[in-house]
């Protein structure tokens, strides 16, 4: 069919300039030595860390040396030389900026290009009643600035970089770090534990509803560098917080490694809503370059009636290996996973979630929308399990895949384990294609092919889009259009 041939043509044309965040920034940086335990000591010393944390890292490092890279995911890539990787790069001039004024102007210019409202004044100067968003900006390995801190502090909310939290709130960090994703969890998480550089820390005290959206923007800039952020969010009893993570990286021929760990802890009656818009560089038309994203994200519904909800929009990265999960430990706790995963060109996505029902009357909901175009591969991999004691566990899973063209693949791999007979697990799955008739209908109304595809795809993912904080919905809709540019003919 002509539509298909043309699709193939168009996909070949996907151009690196379509990735609009592909600029690099010239900033002098300090890098850690490669290859041995000194990396860990170097990083820890750079950050003036207490002894206990250095020990924690070293233990992780030694453990990691004995581990092997996992190979079960449906992704293929050349072997990564972990000996020849920089594990830490920091913008030289930004070691501990006290205020925006001290931040390298080049850095600020970078964030401006990304459209991140770092300057509170600008946000405040915006439309009256416009929602405020507090931002923690992480550049390569270091958190450069966090906004709206005073206003948050008034509410008792701690929002800062994790390095700062280690200094200012060691008791909280010590208590929760590694309590959801243990040091020994998996190859990448263990590596992260050894060499994590920075990331965000959030603590919302008992009974507090965080007064604004919290947001972290991660950007990888330096060459040949792995980025290992560590994020830790704790919602104390009855607290509520909504957090958004955004990511970009410049265009590089070599692949950049990204192996973050995110831990969420929700105590009794608390709720955490964690949203991600992942737009790392996906590689060029031939599949060269792009970010390898090997991320461990897990939430622990530790208290009764607590709730954790993950929403992700995955459009970037050459390889995505990511399973944000919920441990439903508290009785009556609830986990949710809403996902949009778009792959185009030669991208490979293996993503999904795990819902581990441990407590009584726990419930979970999974809505996954995978869109595959070009030569990409898009796999949903999910586990829903009910423990012996998880009486009345309930899950609803719906996995829809949409194919654009006939050179791409979509796969759904659900694992279900119920050790308690009262569990009710429902699973629905569909695979569809954008039909030529639908496309023609749109074209005959004056829409271009790209507009038509973006419109149809945005309709397909609507249920999930609606889960995103309002502030990010319009931006995300546009991003979906951009990611699919050149996907259809």
């Amino acid at each position: 069919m002509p539509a298909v041939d043309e699709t193939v043509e168009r996909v070949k044309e996907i151009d690196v300039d379509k990735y609009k965040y592909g600029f690099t920034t010239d900033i002098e940086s300090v890098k850690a030595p490669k290859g041995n335990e000194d990396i860990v000591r170097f990083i820890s010393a750079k950050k003036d860390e207490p002894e206990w944390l250095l020990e924690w890292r070293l233990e992780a490092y030694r453990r990691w040396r004995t581990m092997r890279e996992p190979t079960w995911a449906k992704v293929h890539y050349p072997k990564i030389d972990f000996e020849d990787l920089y594990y830490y790069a920091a913008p030289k001039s930004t070691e501990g900026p006290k205020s925006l004024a001290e931040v390298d102007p080049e850095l600020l210019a970078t964030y401006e290009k990304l459209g991140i409202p770092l300057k509170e004044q600008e946000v405040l100067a915006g439309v009256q009643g416009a929602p405020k968003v507090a931002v923690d900006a992480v550049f390569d390995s270091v958190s450069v600035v966090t906004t709206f801190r005073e206003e948050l502090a008034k509410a008792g909310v701690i929002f800062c970089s994790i390095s700062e939290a280690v200094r200012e709130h060691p008791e909280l960090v010590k208590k929760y770090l590694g309590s959801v994703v243990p040091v020994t969890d998996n190859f990448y998480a263990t590596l992260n534990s050894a060499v994590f550089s920075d990331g965000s820390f959030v603590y919302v005290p008992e009974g507090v509803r965080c007064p604004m959206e919290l947001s972290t923007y991660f950007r990888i800039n330096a060459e040949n560098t792995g980025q290992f952020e560590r994020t830790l969010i704790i919602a104390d009893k009855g607290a509520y917080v909504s957090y958004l993570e955004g990511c970009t990286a410049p265009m590089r021929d070599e692949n950049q490694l990204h192996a973050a760990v995110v831990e969420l802890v929700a105590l009794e009656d608390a709720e955490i809503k964690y949203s991600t818009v992942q737009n790392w560089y996906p590689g060029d038309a031939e599949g060269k370059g792009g970010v390898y994203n090997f991320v461990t994200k897990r939430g622990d519904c530790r208290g009764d009636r607590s709730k954790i909800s993950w929403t992700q929009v995955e459009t970037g990265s050459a390889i995505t290996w990511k399973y944000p999960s919920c441990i439903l430990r508290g009785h009556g706790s609830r986990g949710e996973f809403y996902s949009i995963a778009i792959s185009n060109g030669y991208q490979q996505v293996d993503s999904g979630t795990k819902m581990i029902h441990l407590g009584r009357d726990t419930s979970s909901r999974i809505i996954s929308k995978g869109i595959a175009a070009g030569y990409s591969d898009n796999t949903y991999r999910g586990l829903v399990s009910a423990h012996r004691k998880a009486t009345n566990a309930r899950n609803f899973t719906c996995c829809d895949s949409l194919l654009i063209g006939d050179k791409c693949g979509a796969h759904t791999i659900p694992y279900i384990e119920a050790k308690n007979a009262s569990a009710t697990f429902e699973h629905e799955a569909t695979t569809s294609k954008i039909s030529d008739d639908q496309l023609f209908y749109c074209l005959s109304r004056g829409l271009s092919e790209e507009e038509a595809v973006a419109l149809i795809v945005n309709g397909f993912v609507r249920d999930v889009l609606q889960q995103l904080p309002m502030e990010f919905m319009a931006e995300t809709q546009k991003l979906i259009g951009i990611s699919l540019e050149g996907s259809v003919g």
Partner: protein
Amino acid sequence: MLEIKNLHATVDGREILKGLDLTVPAGEVHAIMGPNGSGKSTLSYVLAGKEDYEVTDGTITWKGENLLDMDPEERAAAGVFLAFQYPMEIPGVATMTFLRSAVNAVRKARGQEEFSTPDFLRIVKEKAKLLKIDMAMLRRPLNVGFSGGEKKRNEILQMSLLEPDLCILDETDSGLDIDALRIVSEGVNALRSPERSMLVITHYQRLLNYIVPDRVHVLSKGRVARSGGPELALELEKSGYADYGQDEASAA
């Protein structure tokens, strides 16, 4: 003015249109009638530029330009509009969003300014009212779960919003009850104007009581077998299409 000369078109390697000639001057409404499978929908798809419909011979000139050189979205911008016999469903896309995207795309291509949100809302409300479409329907996903009548009224709403000057209506009357038929016909008649040409495709004479054509053409075996004034439709109503033969592999 639309001028079709010696049009031959194939679908899946099978010739459906076999030397069709037709001229529709500006301001006129021409009806195309004919038995099932005679190629009426094929003609409408060829005019709108559907890609599986291959033109093997002949020409189509629209306002002095070669229509066959244009992509479907360029034809839309050039004023060609097809009200589909079977409008497509697009899940998850609110009808209103679709209307707005289409109108803005066409306006942009015509060098007109995009409508502001309040302006657009006002215009849609106005036009929807004429077609007795309530705003709740426009918040539903495009054509999903719409009744036959709702789908056809939605087509005419799109037609009035996109302000085309070649309107092709493919069996817009099929599946409509008498009230809906009247509403739709009034909507179409309101769009008649000296600049606009219309091609009204129908199997039945009934519609032509409401939309009175200037000329009637009978399509048979991929060609115009006969042309005449409105009285030709009445004649067909009596005699049926027997004289024109049911086409070999007829389809609705």
